[in-house]
């Protein structure tokens, strides 16, 4: 492995023993790998819990130095169409493994982003090429993977990392990088990372780019400066009657954070219950929000519908329902 200065890569475990947390899963996978034969895997769990890392360890253990030629990694959320399955996956799967390994491995990250049609195509591919190729699928929610694929895989549920796991990781990294991390900074990193190991390490490195002596205040400044502008700010503008500003901010946030209307609407729905308005109005606004989300799924213009919703918030700000 070439040297890297990206800590998430530099400190990515390359052996089973180095992985923090997920003990049960590792025990089971290790025994399968030692038999030099693996079934298809389905790794389900939140981001930053070690799914990609384990997939990499599996191929390194199986194939040794020739792992790179026999391993294909695809991210389904970037290439989600059926064409990816038809072309990239098939092309790789249909050729024989190189050197002395019995099969190749395809790691399909965020497989739950694949459309249903693509998943159907994938299912056939998994069957047709199971002699030459094994699949490791990863997803956040296994419920979004169609049943026939689930039944062809051995599933593992990755748990979100606990506080002590994140602490262990911070300790390892800070020792190697000569960082001084205060005890309360450990807590802050854990809080901000929400159990996501990648986020924790990135946060640590971003902070370390300013100083080697790290306390919780610094962590929090970095974390909050990179936090997206909340939906709350936008709703506050609307509640105060400033529709034009609310609308402009909304478009800015959607563009800048590249979030879709459907994600905005989810955040709005959650935020309603934290607003300082009558509970009755909250119910009415929730109804509006639901209607807006429904229209979006029907293929309406997201931004037009969100504007209509914001107009309802303007009224709610005056204690009136639409």
């Amino acid at each position: 492995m070439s040297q890297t200065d990206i800590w998430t890569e530099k400190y990515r475990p390359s052996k089973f023993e180095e992985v923090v947390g997920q003990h049960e899963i590792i025990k089971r996978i290790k025994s399968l790998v030692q038999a030099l034969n693996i079934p298809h895997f389905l790794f389900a769990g939140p981001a930053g819990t070690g799914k990609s890392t384990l997939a990499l360890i599996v191929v390194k253990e199986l194939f040794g130095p020739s792992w790179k030629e026999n391993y294909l990694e695809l991210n389904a959320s970037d290439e989600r169409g059926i064409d990816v399955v038809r072309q990239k996956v098939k092309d790789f799967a249909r050729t024989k493994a190189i050197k002395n390994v019995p099969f190749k491995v395809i790691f399909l990250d965020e497989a739950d982003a694949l459309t249903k049609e693509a998943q159907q195509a994938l299912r056939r591919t998994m069957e047709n090429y199971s002699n030459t190729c094994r699949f490791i699928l990863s997803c956040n929610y296994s419920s979004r993977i169609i049943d026939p694929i689930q039944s062809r895989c051995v599933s593992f549920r990755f748990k979100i990392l606990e506080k002590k796991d994140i602490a262990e990781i911070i300790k390892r990294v800070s020792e190697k990088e000569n960082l001084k991390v205060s005890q309360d900074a450990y807590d802050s990193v854990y809080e901000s990372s929400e159990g996501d190991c990648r986020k924790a390490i990135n946060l640590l490195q971003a902070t370390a780019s300013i100083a080697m002596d790290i306390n919780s205040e610094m962590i929090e400044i970095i974390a909050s400066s990179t936090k997206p502008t909340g939906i709350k700010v936008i709703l506050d503008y609307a509640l105060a009657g400033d529709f034009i500003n609310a609308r402009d901010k909304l478009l800015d946030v959607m563009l800048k954070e590249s979030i879709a209307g459907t994600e905005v609407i989810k955040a709005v729905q959650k935020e309603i219950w934290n607003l300082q308005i009558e509970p009755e109005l909250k119910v009415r606004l929730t109804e509006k929000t639901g209607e807006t989300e429904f229209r979006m799924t029907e293929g309406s213009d997201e931004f037009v519908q969100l504007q209509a919703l914001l107009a309802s918030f303007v009224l709610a700000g005056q204690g009136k329902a639409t």
Partner: protein
Amino acid sequence: MYKNLSEKYIAEKYEDFHGQDAAIIEIKKFLAEFPKRRGIILHGPAGTGKTSLALAAAKENNLEILELNASDLRNRLKLEQIVKPATEQKSLFKAGKIILMDEVDGVTGTDIGGIPELVRLVTMTNYPLVMTCNDVWQSKLSPLRAKCKIIEMKALSTLSILEILKKISGKEGINKNISFLSQISLKSQGDVRAAINDLQSYAYDHNIIVDVSEKRDVEENIFNILRKLFKERAPFFDLFDNTKLSLDEVFLWIEENIPREYKNEALANAYYALGKADVFRGRIYRDQSWRFLIYQNIFQSAGIAYAKKTPTQGFTKYENPKRILKIWLHNQKIEKKKTISKKYAKLVHCSLKRVMRDFDLIRPILKKPLVQEQMRLSDEEVDFLNK
């Protein structure tokens, strides 16, 4: 030799097309699967690239092209004499050929027996027969529809046209003022050829006043419509007929200006109506149920006008719709961010989406020289990070 810009910059390869990805995939498929289907109809409004796509398909596949268009007589006899042999004989110089019948909706009464003969040719041709037309749904074409694969070429979005104009004006070294170009794109209503022609007609006229007056003309028009809508509650069914702008563009103008006219309840009512208009518009797009157009029209006009019990008096300053331009400018800005994120995502086994979302957190890491070297960032990308 002087060439029309619209001919000089005609799309010659698949990659030259903008906003027609679906059509390209379909025609590729059609050619690959030939003779599963022997004929294909490309249909859509003028200037969307129907003929260019057929020519490009020939070029991409190194095929000869035999072209007949509306200017040729296309009755049964002619088709039998010229096209039929072509459907049977091999190409002289190339691996194969495509027969292009341009503008088949122009096969008219004087082309006696033209359509039935075409149908016959489609069933037996040894070479792909590509036809183009504006309106594929007219009844005289129905026997042909049944035998052919049908591909729709959509009117291009204003953004796609803007991209094309920017590219051309860059190469030609002519006026590249964005707001000028976006006016032309708006005006073209999805017709690339018209847009490029407009660009050319302004480009060589050094008197830029032409452009401004034209622009003002369009704006006055829409300002009048907005005033009639908001202040006068004018008769609605023809309210949007007197503008060169499409209904969708008028929609953007209304969307932008509602909050300048209405407050509170009226604001909510107006957006409710606009939201409804949008729902019907969505159904039209999705299912081609043009019947719903009347509902879109009414909500977009009367729905807006009667959002308030009595219309607001006095002068309201209406503004240009900003949303589309804002999105376009933003896309330009994040282009570098995207290319950097792509490189990074590959390195750290992570999705592009996620990297884009966490970009601010990762930025200090990307500033490290060692990291930049490992990622092989270009000078422009490094500049972007240091900004």
